[in-house]
């Protein structure tokens, strides 16, 4: 008799961790601060977490393919500033959005080209480019925060339905759904997992790994750009200094949601939920404290914890006590004695 499959997906359960964590975070948060369950709170939670969640799903794509993008915060800032400047210059809303997204995608393209063509490690490329892009954002905004004057659709944006469904939430859901579908089903998405799981095997199989990685960088940059636009609209200002906290929360959120830092694992929807869960935690913390540091501290701590690898406490303690060496080391010591040739000072 065939077993009834309750769950169709073949992916490990940890991939869906984000949904569970979000649920827990929300319930616990609600228990600690019951005001969380009101529709106003949900609305503000949405506003607060949409940018981070968008960056998180972009970062998730990058992490799945076993790379790291540290410049998404800078791209978010640049996009916001470009968007604000373009609007101020009198351009219509659609044009400003397109320009900001194009600039972001261009940054992603440059990142991707440096990684795939120049072969420089992605962490160095994005570390350097984050610096440059922040410099560019500061230059474009001339160092000041750009205010949005005379912004048209503000009335429409203030709408909401059923208490908490804002236009932002709708845009966010559409974007997350689209990316999740692409990563989950499209050929490029499958190539992401393959290239992330075992890069060399993917190359040998003939997968277009370079193009896959390049597209990942472009997409995540575009998502960060969208996040920047949304943030700018929400704040009504283009700030060239934002983004680093968002990036940190995005990385942590993605990993909480089940994306592995080593690549090849994770789901987009879960990553988004992980980011929202982290934002929920931050809101709960900030409701109880005036100072900003607990949020920064907790986010940093979460990042440290998600960055830890596999370790076996029992084994560590046991080995420490017994002083037992590993077999190859023991063989080497038996053959050559302790130490090595380089130690001999004679």
């Amino acid at each position: 008799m065939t077993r009834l499959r309750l769950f169709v997906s073949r992916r490990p359960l940890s991939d869906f961790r984000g949904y569970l964590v979000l649920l827990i975070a929300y319930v616990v948060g609600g228990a600690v601060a019951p005001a969380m369950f009101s529709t106003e709170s949900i609305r503000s939670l949405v506003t607060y977490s949409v940018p981070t969640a968008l960056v998180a799903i972009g970062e998730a794509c990058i992490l799945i393919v076993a790379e790291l993008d540290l410049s998404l915060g800078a791209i978010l800032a640049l996009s916001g500033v470009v968007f604000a400047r373009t609007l101020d210059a009198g351009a219509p809303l659609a044009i400003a959005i397109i320009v900001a997204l194009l600039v972001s995608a261009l940054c992603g393209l440059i990142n991707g080209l440096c990684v795939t063509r120049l072969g420089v490690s992605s962490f160095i490329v994005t570390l350097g480019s984050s610096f440059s892009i922040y410099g560019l954002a500061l230059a474009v905004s001339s160092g000041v925060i750009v205010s949005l004057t005379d912004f048209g659709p503000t009335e429409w944006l203030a709408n909401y339905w059923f208490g908490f469904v804002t236009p932002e939430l709708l845009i966010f859901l559409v974007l997350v759904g689209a990316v999740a579908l692409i990563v989950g089903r499209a050929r490029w998405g499958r190539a992401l997992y393959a290239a992330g799981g075992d890069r060399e095997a993917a190359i040998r199989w003939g997968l277009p790994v370079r193009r896959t990685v390049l597209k990942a960088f472009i997409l995540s940059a575009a998502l960060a750009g969208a996040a920047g636009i949304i943030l700018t609209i929400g704040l009504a200002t283009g700030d060239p200094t934002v983004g680093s906290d968002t990036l940190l929360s995005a990385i942590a959120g993605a990993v909480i949601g089940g994306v592995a830092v080593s690549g090849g694992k994770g789901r987009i929807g879960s990553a988004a939920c992980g980011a929202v869960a982290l934002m929920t935690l931050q809101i709960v913390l900030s409701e109880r404290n005036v100072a900003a540091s607990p949020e920064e501290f907790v986010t940093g701590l979460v990042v440290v914890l998600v960055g830890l690898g596999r370790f076996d406490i029992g084994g560590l303690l046991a080995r420490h006590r017994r002083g037992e060496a590993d077999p190859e080391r023991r063989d080497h010591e038996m053959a050559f004695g302790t130490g090595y040739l380089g130690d001999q000072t004679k």
Partner: protein
Amino acid sequence: MSVLLAVAPVAALSTGEAFVMIRGKFCDLSVGATASAAAVVAVWLSPHGAVVALLGALAVGLAVGLVNGLAIAVLNGNAIIVTLGMASVVSAIDLGVSGGRNLSVSNGQLSNIGSSLVAGVPLPVIITAVVVVTASIWFSRAQWGRHLALAGDNERAAQIAGVSVRRSTMLAFVLCACFSAFGGYILATYVGNLNFTVEASTALPAIAGTVLGGISLFGGAGLPWYALLGAVLLGYFDNVLLVLGLSPYQEEIVEGLLVIGVVYLTERISFGKETRRATF
């Protein structure tokens, strides 16, 4: 001369990064936060004298380095992610404890160090140079230095040969944090008013200096004083850009691109067409 004075703290940070890079763990992104926290502690302790202030600063470095080392060496953490998180943690603790006020260095031993000149060279510069060179000489002669380089070159082989890789990694991160703290101390000696946010994002200029000095990202090669050289070069390069009329923002743009370019060139020269693939 003023360039050297401004470069001295960054040089200390770069030297710290050098140890982590030689060990092959790519980098420590918490150096800026550690330096900032150490500077605050040094200023806070400055009424008790320069030595006490130095000890306080180094204590901060030791604490941060131990946590980093524990997370990365013992708990197998990913160096980049862990130190990225630690930067926020240290920064948050710093802000929480110091209350974000502006601290001014009291007129005492500490600021005396900052304003003294020896044969025309600022004392902080000389102290930094002496410390870095001494550490580098010790590194090239001592067993711990060789172990660091071996572990960075081929971790498994070093492990089999009897090198305690975990201890080397711990040492690398502790040294890095201590050098960052030392950099913060040096900064405290000559900065009149310590604004709390003393460049918490100084990780990149520090890494830029280390890489520019010729230390490979992948480990095993190089000596700590290369980083000093790289930091000084970077400092003069920045100065040239300023003189050429570039705004600080344009300078940042150039610096970011420079790091990418330098890493690309050094990898290309070291490994030829096939660039080694890192995990990131």
